[in-house]
């Protein structure tokens, strides 16, 4: 693994009990520092399972994962401080305030005192929630909750962030805001894996794209190159061309 390589996953496999087909079937993935990978796929394609394994939340049945040169499967405790996760289900305590949520997550990563207070201010300023610091999460709109979710995921300044559909169910203005935040984060050098159904977001944001279906990698590479090779005008067209138009229930 080169010094600029942050994430390298090889031959990842995951089978769930009772299922005939593996949820993830020999997926390979490489990320340089500063990359922003868009992970696309229909429902049940294996995106969330892939992200869970890369984030060391789920142990693969086969394959290897290296993060910053450390074997993540043998030494998950060493790589976890470098990882941040912004899950699809909001990782927030709804009856606590934003300040209390950020304080909790900051303390969990070892931040305290002035360092914690400063980091909280940076995060809420970053996501545009400075006026809501002492409001309870259950008073937030959907967009605000998603931004708060992002803030808690990056409070500890991780090198690698996994985002699982971070803009689902929110208004366009909030989506735009989050996209801009992520773009800025990426500019600051944070490497990201971004899973979404919104093709336009991925097209705007991601330098690399990986399309998965039925647990396998269908295609991966630079978005512009993929579109050029396929002759498609946009990622959505490419996606439908590769995965079909049949409903996935």
């Amino acid at each position, binding site marked *: 693994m080169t010094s600029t390589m942050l994430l390298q996953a090889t031959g990842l496999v995951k089978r769930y009990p009772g299922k005939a087909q593996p949820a993830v079937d020999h997926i390979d993935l490489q990320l340089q520092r500063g990359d922003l990978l868009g992970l696309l796929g229909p429902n049940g394609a294996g995106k969330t399972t892939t992200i*869970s394994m890369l*984030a*060391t*939340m789920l142990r693969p049945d086969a394959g290897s994962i290296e993060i910053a040169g450390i074997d993540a499967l043998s030494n*998950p*405790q060493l790589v*976890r*401080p470098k*990882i941040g*996760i912004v*899950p*699809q*289900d*909001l*990782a*927030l*305590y709804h*009856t*606590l305030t934003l300040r*209390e949520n950020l*304080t*909790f*997550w900051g*303390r*969990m*990563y*070892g931040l*305290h005192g002035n360092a914690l207070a400063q980091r909280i201010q940076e995060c809420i300023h970053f996501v545009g929630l400075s006026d809501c610091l002492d409001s*309870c999460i259950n008073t937030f709109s959907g967009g605000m909750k998603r931004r708060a*979710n992002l803030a*808690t*995921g990056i409070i500890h300044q991780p090198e690698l962030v996994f985002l699982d559909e971070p803009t689902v169910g929110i208004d366009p203005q909030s989506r735009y805001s989050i996209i801009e935040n992520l773009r800025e984060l990426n500019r600051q050098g944070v490497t990201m894996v971004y899973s979404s159904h919104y093709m336009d977001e991925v097209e705007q944001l991601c330098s690399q794209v990986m399309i998965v279906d039925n647990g396998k990698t269908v295609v991966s590479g630079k978005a512009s190159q993929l579109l050029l090779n396929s002759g498609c005008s946009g990622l959505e067209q490419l996606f439908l061309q590769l995965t079909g138009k049949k409903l996935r229930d």
Partner: protein
Amino acid sequence: MLLLWQQFFAFFVKELQLLRRDRGALLILFLMPVALVVIVSLVQDNILKVTGSRTVKLLVVDHDHGYLGQQLLHQLETSDSFQVTCVAETVNYPDAKFEVSTGQWQVGIYLPPGVSQQLEQRAMAMVRAGFTDDVSAKAPPTKPPLTVEYFFDPAVQGGLQAGISGMLQQLVARATLMKQLNALQKMLPAYIERQVTAQLGPMYAQVLANSELGINVPELTQPIVQAVQISAAPAASNADFVQPTSVQHNVPAWSLFGIFFIILPVSAAILQERSLGVFPRILIIPGSGFAMLCGRLLAYLLVCLVQLCLMLGVGYFVLPLLGTDVLQFNGQLGALIVVALAAALTASGFGLLLGIVARSEQQAIMIAAVSIVIAAALGGIMVPVYMMPAGMQQLSIISPLGWGLDACQVLLLRSGTLRDILPQLLTMMGCFAGCMLLSWRKIIKL
């Protein structure tokens, strides 16, 4: 190590913040146990109470108008346990039974006409038989005994029935004895006179007649022998004797019940985290599993301590204002806190385990509520263990609430010390350790 302590502190603070904003949990943890302690202590306070207000309503239907009725009424009215109403001809026997069966009275007593006269006649006949040589007069009586009937409201419980029955039997026996003594008192001088006349001649009988042989047995106003209740506490004990009262029984029992309700918010908190994205995020933070368990534990221990202080405060300050006895600590307040902490650890440990293994919040709530009630029933919170069937008494040894209640009774009622309750404490800690071990193993696998 520093990170571990920071995570521990983070969980501790967060749990208290969540609890502060959960009104439902606060009601369950604080208001419900206080209400239970107050209501149950007051409800049980007047059962066969020696002093205090008269609450057992007793109807005496006296169609006899004689000695027996007078004696019964005198004894019942001087007792502080009854509110006695005596009726003569206004209520007949069937009506009296009906009124008692509908709950207008707890007890009814019926004195049939002529029972006192018949008592006196039979007592005289019995004593007379003692002064005669006629064998047939000494034969066992063929007539059935006289009856004074008493009947209870069907809702009156067995304990109260047994107490009142015993007291009435005693009153009737005492009245009978007095009549026998009176008969003896009347007949003995004449018997002696006859015997002297028969043996020594009329001259000596004349002497006796001039100086009357009077026997006056005084009225039995004070018993010659009486059963006296004493303490069963060991002589070497330094503790003062503590009268067992409803407060002494109920405050510790329902305090433990309230403490065990901590299982509900503990398990619910974890299940809410599992249903949101919080739990996965927690688990990928280095070292968080241990902090997640222990930080929560400390927070809920603190809550249980506050609960206990509240309950003991109710027993010591509030209940006496409502007319009950004051809760006495028997010099064992510190040991009582140790028992409460052990109970809190047991309950919190089980709550943690339930939160980790249950599949949904509804499932956890159901299991928690049912298990607490079953453990309370088995442990003797509602009905004392010694009053249960033999099989249930054996089953009661598995109840954590039973272990805690047993320890409290040793401290508060049996003049015990911390050393005497070590087995109960160790059992509770063993249960806690088992729950924590299982929880830790489950978290590692997640």
